[in-house]
């Protein structure tokens, strides 16, 4: 190596380090990462105490990496490298066999005992209230689109949990969503980049649920309206899979005279079935009903129709528009933010029927199900 060449190599290395040292110092720190959907660590406070107990170092390590220049680019580059070396998974997300366009989040099966406990809470609700209680679990992509999973992928099967749920309903009535969705598995029933079902999937779910509850579902005859063709969901975020084509989102049912009261902060405020502003953000799924809220009450203006309480997760956000066609009043209730007695809630609000509706993955992991029996 000539001296000049050695200097060139030295300079190359030093400049690379220096460039990022400078960029990290000069670029303003970000508060929030839309890509990761979380607040990023900020510069920790330097004090004698935080240094001697090591908190400063720990926080600084996080801070430095969180605020690293071009963080999202590096994450994407790593995902590409993994894919190019033949990996069918990155950061716990499996790449579908359709050119890695469908992304599957990891699923871990619950133990039988754990599942039995969860189901006992559901039955407790059925015993507590005097109105009929229906219970259903929405299967995930890994069940409905199992044929797109990489062969032999170590992703647990949902069927054990589903069978156990079906066989354990004592005081509640089980409604099957697996068959209707499996029958439509060739259609666009899930977002490829997100864990939720699409409005089409929700529509098929709606048809099956109404039939199971003894109501007449309204067949959809119009044409759904495309509201976004650039939805990149949470599974995409986990995978860092920049090659994925974004998902499309559709609006099926018009708002009409339906009145939505949202309780985002616990206080009633006027809501909407669709919140357009979310379509220009990363978190597009919140277009439906405006995202997380402890309680949402929908008045449809329908007379001679029952009222329903849905104890639910976010899959119901996109189901709600369809439900407006069959109920006079719909109460969407999120267990995570409420500690009321459901028994009292049903009585005080004159609820005619209750639906407990969760995705399998949320039902098997949520820590608030015990509140069903309160």
């Amino acid at each position, binding site marked *: *190596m000539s*001296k000049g*060449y*050695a*200097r*060139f*190599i*030295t300079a*190359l*290395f*030093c400049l*690379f*380090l*220096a460039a*990022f*040292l400078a960029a*990290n110092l000069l670029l303003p720190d970000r508060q929030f990462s839309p*890509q*990761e*959907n*979380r607040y990023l660590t900020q510069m920790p406070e330097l004090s004698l105490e935080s240094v*001697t107990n090591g908190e400063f170092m720990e926080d*600084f*390590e*996080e801070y*430095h*990496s*969180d605020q*690293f220049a071009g963080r999202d680019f*590096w*994450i994407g*580059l*790593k*995902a590409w*490298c993994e894919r190019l*070396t*033949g*990996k*069918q*998974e990155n*950061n716990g997300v499996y790449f579908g066999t359709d050119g890695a366009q469908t992304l599957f989040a990891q699923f871990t099966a619950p133990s039988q005992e754990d599942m039995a406990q969860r189901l006992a809470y559901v039955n407790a609700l059925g015993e507590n209230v005097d109105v009929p209680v229906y219970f259903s679990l929405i299967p995930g992509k890994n069940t409905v689109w199992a044929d797109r999973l*990489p*062969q*032999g992928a*170590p992703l647990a099967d949902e069927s054990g949990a589903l069978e156990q749920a079906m066989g354990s309903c004592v005081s509640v009535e089980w409604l099957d969503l697996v068959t209707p969705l499996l029958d439509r598995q060739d259609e666009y029933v899930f977002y490829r980049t997100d864990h939720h079902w699409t409005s089409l999937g929700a529509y098929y779910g709606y048809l099956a649920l109404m039939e199971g509850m003894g109501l007449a579902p309204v067949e959809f005859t119009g044409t759904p309206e495309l509201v976004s063709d650039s939805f990149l969901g*949470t599974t995409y*975020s*986990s995978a*860092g899979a920049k090659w994925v084509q974004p998902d499309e989102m559709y609006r099926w049912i018009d708002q009409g005279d339906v009145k939505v009261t949202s309780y985002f902060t616990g206080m009633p405020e006027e809501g909407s079935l669709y919140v357009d502003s979310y379509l220009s953000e990363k*978190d597009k*799924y*919140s277009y439906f009903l405006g*995202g*997380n809220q402890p309680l949402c009450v929908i008045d449809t203006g329908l007379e001679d129709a029952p009222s329903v309480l849905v104890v639910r*997760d*976010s*899959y119901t956000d996109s189901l709600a528009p369809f439900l407006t066609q069959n109920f006079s009043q719909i109460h969407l209730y999120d267990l995570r933010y409420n500690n009321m007695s459901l028994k009292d809630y049903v009585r005080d609000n004159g609820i005619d029927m209750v639906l407990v509706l969760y*995705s399998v993955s*949320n039902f098997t992991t*949520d820590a608030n199900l015990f509140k069903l029996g309160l």
Partner: protein
Amino acid sequence: MVFSTTYFLFLYLPVVLLVYYLAPLKLRNLALLAVSLLFYYWGERIYVLIMFASTVIDYTHGMLVERCKGKGNLRGARMAVASSIVFNLALLGFFKYWDFIAGSLQAVGLTFMPVLGVHLPIGISFYTFQTMSYTIDVYRGDTRAQRSTINFGTFVTLFPQLIAGPIIKYKDLGGQIDSRTCTADKFASGVQRFLVGLGKKLLIANNVGMLWDAYKAMAPGELTVAGAWLGVLAFTFQIYFDFSGYSDMAIGLGRMLGFEFLENFNYPYISKSVTEFWRRWHISLSTWFREYLYIPLGGNRCSKGRWVFNLLVVWAATGIWHGASWNFLIWGLYFFVLLMLERLVWGKALARLPAAVGHVYTLALVMVSWAIFAIEDFGQLGAYLKVMFGLGGVPLADGAFGYYLRSYLPLLVIAAVGSTPLLSMAWRKLRARPAAVALPVLLLAGLMVCTAYVVDATYNPFLYFRF
């Protein structure tokens, strides 16, 4: 502090290089000492005091030994050496082995030693060995005592090799501590070596490590014969690329600062016998034990029985040095038995067989040793080994094995090739001009990819904000 993090690569390292090269020559060791202490303090905080103590005590012991010898007081010199050894072993013994011994005694009903939950200060196994050998070498006359506390402190705390070796002996480095030259040539070769090590760690070791983690976490009922071997193969590559990657990074960083450390690995997986494997694996540790334990015990210049005993002691010590747990002791003794068998029974026959036999024989035995090394729980280890040897009627392979093999095959092939000298031979065969063009390209690509992996290591999307 760990090398494979954003704050080491893009904050600590450039600042250290800047400070080091801006400092006047006379102050460079002081600068190195300061940044090395910061490096250790960052992760270990108060335990930096142990390193201080180790430095001060061995500095004084070295001086004491030299003074006694100068006055012809051999007995005094011997006492000083003994005192240094006792001190260093006590330090290592307490911080590394107290809880292990106490726990083992409690398991058989002896409760006079309480389990204290002692924190294991990182790198203590390395720096206590380094300081211990220093005093011994002064006594043996292999080196002169270091007069400057700053220079001696620099030797003990030198950050490139502080936490994962190689174990550097003072007699090999003392001259360079006192004076060394920094050239662009050395720096550039250090850059290459450092990146090779960083790549080995981040791109190969961490990745195949995930494959091993998947197999290690499986219940015996989920394992298959082929899967169990695939898992151990993954660990075989993980430990080599991780450990030799750290050594490469240390050697590379050393060169950037003007030092030349001895090699620590020499393609161990191409060995044709277990004896050869141990001449190529973690060389700085085996030579340390050879010089400071095996030979003082009498080596092989003694009766056959005593020789076997000496080797037994060395391999038990080698085993337990790797960690305070019974499986490491068994791992050391496993090699003792194999090395004995090669010396006394089939070593010569093995050498006459075709090379391929030797390779397969060595790799298989080494892989079994890694299973013992990697699984600390005896019940799990027994179950895993049973599956590896097809006992207990487990299936040969399953869908998960196919999935993992497909997913990791390219990486495993790269790791296999990288375990041989092929790549470095090919690089040396390359003509000067294409090499001159390829080097900066590879360097930049390597830096980019390593940065991507190092940033991704903390990738932590929050997905449950909304069911």
